[in-house]
C-alpha cells in the first residue's frame, strides 16, 4: 500500500467519514472524502482499493449480516461508481504508449466496478483501457479487440457461477486472436481457484490492482 504523505490526512478518519456518507446516502460527504483521498496523492490504486473497494466489501458484509437493506447497498454502489468519474479528467489526459487493452465482464456478470478499475489502471500506465461493462456478450469484446488491435483482454468475474462463462469466453477469444494475452481476475477468486484456472485455461489470473500493475510493468519491459 502506498503511504499517504499529505499532512493532516489520516486515512482511517477519511475512510470512516466516507463509509458514513455511503450508508446514510450522503453523496456530498462521499464526494468530499473521495476528493480528499485523491488529493492526498496516495495514488489511484490506493483510492480505488483502500477507499472504494474496502467500503464496498464492508457494505456487502453489512448487508449479509442484515444490518442494511438491499436499497442502501444499491445506493452505495451507484454512488461509489459515479465517484470514479472524478478521476477521469486527469487520468485520460496522460501521455499514451500506443498499446491498448479491452476489459469486459462476462455474460451474466453484473458486477462491473472492479472491471472498470482495471480499465482505469491500464489508462494510468499509458495504455488505452477500453471498458465494455457488465454482462457483455463475447462477440462485442471480439469486435473491439479487432478494431483497436488490442494486445490484451481482461475478463472480470465476481460470482463463482460466472467462472463457467470465463471458460467459454476464453475459448472464443483464443480462437479469434491466438496472440492476444488473456487476463482473468475478480472476486470469484477471493476464496481460491486461481492456480486451477491458470492451469486449465492457460491464462494469467490476477486478483488485485497491485498484481495488475506488476504485470503491466513486466509486459512493458519485455516489449
Amino acid at each position: 500500500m502506498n503511504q499517504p504523505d499529505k499532512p493532516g490526512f489520516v486515512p482511517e478518519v477519511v475512510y470512516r467519514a466516507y463509509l458514513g456518507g455511503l450508508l446514510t446516502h450522503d453523496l456530498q460527504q462521499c464526494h468530499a472524502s473521495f476528493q480528499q483521498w485523491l488529493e492526498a496523492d496516495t495514488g489511484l490504486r490506493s483510492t480505488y482499493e483502500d477507499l472504494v473497494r474496502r467500503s464496498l466489501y464492508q457494505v456487502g458484509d453489512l448487508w449479509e449480516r442484515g444490518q442494511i437493506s438491499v436499497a442502501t447497498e444499491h445506493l452505495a454502489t451507484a454512488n461509489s461508481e459515479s465517484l470514479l468519474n472524478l478521476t477521469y479528467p486527469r487520468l485520460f489526459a496522460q501521455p499514451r504508449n500506443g498499446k491498448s487493452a479491452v476489459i469486459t465482464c462476462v455474460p451474466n456478470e453484473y458486477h462491473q466496478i472492479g472491471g472498470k478499475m482495471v480499465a482505469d489502471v491500464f489508462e494510468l500506465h499509458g495504455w488505452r483501457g477500453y471498458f465494455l461493462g457488465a454482462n457483455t456478450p463475447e462477440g462485442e469484446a471480439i469486435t473491439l479487440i479487432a478494431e483497436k488491435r488490442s494486445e490484451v483482454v481482461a475478463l472480470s468475474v465476481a460470482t463463482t457461477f460466472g467462472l463457467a462463462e470465463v471458460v467459454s469466453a476464453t475459448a472464443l477469444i483464443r480462437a479469434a486472436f491466438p496472440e492476444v494475452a488473456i487476463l482473468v481476475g475478480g472476486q470469484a477468486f477471493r476464496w481460491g481457484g486461481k492456480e486451477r484456472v491458470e492451469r486449465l485455461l492457460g491464462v494469467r489470473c490476477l486478483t488485485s490492482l497491485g498484481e495488475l500493475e506488476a504485470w503491466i510493468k513486466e509486459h512493458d519491459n519485455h516489449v
Partner: protein
Amino acid sequence: MFDRSDIAEAMRTYVLETAQVMVLHLDADDRVVGANDQALRVLRAGTVGRPLAEQIVDFNHTLDVPALIRQTGMVHRLTLSTASGQPETFGFRFFSISSGVLALASLDFQEQLELRNEVLSLNRELNNLTRQLHQANAELRELNQLKNQFLGMAAHDLRKPIGLIMTYSEFVLDEAGVQLSEQQREFLRTCLRAATGMKQLIDGFLDLAVIESGHLRLDLAPASAREMVAGAEPMAQLVAEKKGITLLVDVADDTRRLRVDASKLQQVLLNLV
C-alpha cells in the same frame, strides 16, 4: 382461517401502525375524517378534513371520484400529491362501511422494483458512457495534435521549394526579361503569382498548426518602436516601390524598450501596410 378475531386484531394493528399501506376513513360526503400513520407520513399536510376528490390529481377533470369510490370490487389507479411535493400513483381499493367508506391504498411494489432496476441499470450505463466520453475526448485531442504536427511538417517542407520557384521566376524576369517574348514573360508572372498565393496559403497553415498545437513560441527581447519599424521598413519600401507608392516613415522619438517578439511584430506591421 384468517377470520379468527385474534388474527383480525393482529392484522388491524399491523395495517394501522407498520404496513406501507395508507388507510383513509371517508364520511358519507367522501371527506377524509381519519388516516393511519402511513397516510399522514406520505400525503400532504391537511389531508384530514378535506374531501378525497380535492386531493386527487385529475389533469383533465374527467374523473368521477364519487362514482369510483362506490365501485368497491376493484383497484383504481389514482394519483395524489405527496408530502415530498411529487405526485405519486397509488392502487386504491374502497370498502363500503356503515359510517361511510374505507379507502386502502399502496404503491405498486412490482412497478417500483422494475423502476429501481431500470434506473440502476441506466445509471451503470451512464457511468460507462461518461467514461467513454472522457476517453474519446482524450483520443480526439491526441489526433488533433497529430494533425497539427503533420500540418506543420508538411508546410515546412513545402515552403523551401516554393521559395526557390519564386526567387528564380523573379530572377529570370528581372535579368532575362528583355530576351523573352511578352507571352513568355506573362507565363513567368503567372508562375510567380501562383507560387506567391501558395506561399501565403502555407504560411497560414503553419501559423494555424503552431497556434492550435499550443506551441507558438515567442522570442522575447527588449526592442523599441523605432527598431521594430526600422526592421520592417526595407521590405515595405520594396513592395511600395513596385506599386509606385511613396512610403513615408514617421516614428515618435520614444526610446522605451519593451520585451516583445520583434520579428512577429514586424510581420504584423507588414501585413497592415
